[in-house]
């Protein structure tokens, strides 16, 4: 199958890739662009470890064709920290021990990043609903909820 040239923005930089139409964004990110932050979990859009931000929305990159992202603005977990240090949300996950094995963390961070822009001052029920597309198989949910709550507070004070 003929490959197609696709350009999109990844963490602020324009990237050009050559992909088959069947290539999924998660594979382009990990295998073509060596951005291995977004993980591969269930591959059927349930677990959320592949979550990235596309044009201001959280999307599961295992269920999106790379050709569909042409012209889009994609943000992955690699774009969160800066030279000055961790993003406020990342630091909140550290402070609240919002991870155990860490496999789900990139997806949790990217979802929290968008969720806290959609709802900057959520209550716990809203956090659970907003984060419900991300699974943690260590079942460390309580600390993840705590981390998102702390991140919301710290973002508002920042």
């Amino acid at each position, binding site marked *: *199958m003929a490959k*197609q040239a696709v350009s999109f923005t990844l963490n602020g930089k324009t990237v050009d890739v050559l992909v*088959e*139409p*069947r*290539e*999924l964004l998660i*594979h382009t990110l990990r295998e073509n662009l060596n951005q291995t932050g977004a993980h591969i979990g269930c*591959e*059927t*859009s*349930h677990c*959320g470890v592949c*979550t990235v931000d596309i044009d201001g*929305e*959280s*999307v*599961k990159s295992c*269920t*999106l*064709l790379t*050709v*569909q992202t042409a012209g889009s603005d994609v943000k992955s977990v690699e774009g969160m920290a800066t030279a000055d240090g961790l993003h406020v949300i990342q630091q909140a996950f550290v402070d609240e021990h919002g991870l155990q094995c860490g496999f789900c963390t990139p997806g949790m961070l990217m*979802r929290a990043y968008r*969720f806290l822009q959609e709802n900057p001052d959520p209550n716990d029920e809203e956090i659970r*609903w*907003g*984060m*419900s*597309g991300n699974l943690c198989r260590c079942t460390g949910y309580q600390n993840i909820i705590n981390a998102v709550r702390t991140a919301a507070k710290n973002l508002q004070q920042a």
Partner: protein
Amino acid sequence: MIPSCFEYHKATSIADAIAKLQDNEDAKLLAGGHSLLPMMKLRFSEAPYLVDINGIEGLKGISIDGDTITIGAMTTESELIRSDILQQYCPLLVEAAKLVADPQVRNKGTIGGDVAHGDPGNDHPAVMLALDAQLVIHGPDGERMIPANGFFLGTYWTALEEYEILVAIKVPALTSGTGHGYHKLKRKTGDYAVAGSAVVVEMNGDVVRDIRIGLTNVAPMAIRAEAAEDLIRGKRVDDVLLKAVEKAIVAACDPAVDLRGDEEYKSHMAAIMARRSIIQAIENAKE
């Protein structure tokens, strides 16, 4: 998991999409892709040609004209939830959309895809039946409009003809004395319903003037529980009547047995979901 090879075309218009469907054997439309792409990965579907209808002008958006709300087929679940028009004039759709999948999936999944896919586990078909929605369809011979009642023919089987595209859905705006309810039993967030039920009632004081009951995932397709509706129409609803209604709903169910439960359990849960939706619908019709 990666789908098998296919060609990809991003359609520029509805006419372009229809032409590509005609020109390419077994071509499929790509809407939100959150049913189709997993099916292609698992080889349940091996479409050789995908026509991407994301980005076609006019397939998105929600508008109201008089007492009719028009929803573009490519409107996402998240957009339904955020819609002020729906919140005010058709909150049933907002409530049902909130129970579809999870936030990320709702950002991609579309109401048109949910309806046209023909999956009995999808939430919108039963809602469409309860709302008595009209479906606007474009095909090689132009436009036609058909009622949702009769559209769902079987599992992955609808009244859509070859090369046709569902472009919009028309639902009536809520009027005074009208109430609605949707209940869905699911094992976890993101799962399909064990059973679900959408109900719309039109009240005349305490008497149910008209009622439509749609059922999710308890038959090869979304169905109307017509025998149960007949029991309620023209009556005041009380516990005795609801017991009879539950029996009629169990009798209407023909669920597939899977890990979500056996036939008896699913049918019983459908009756419970319908009972709760009926009570909710009557309650909020009074407000």
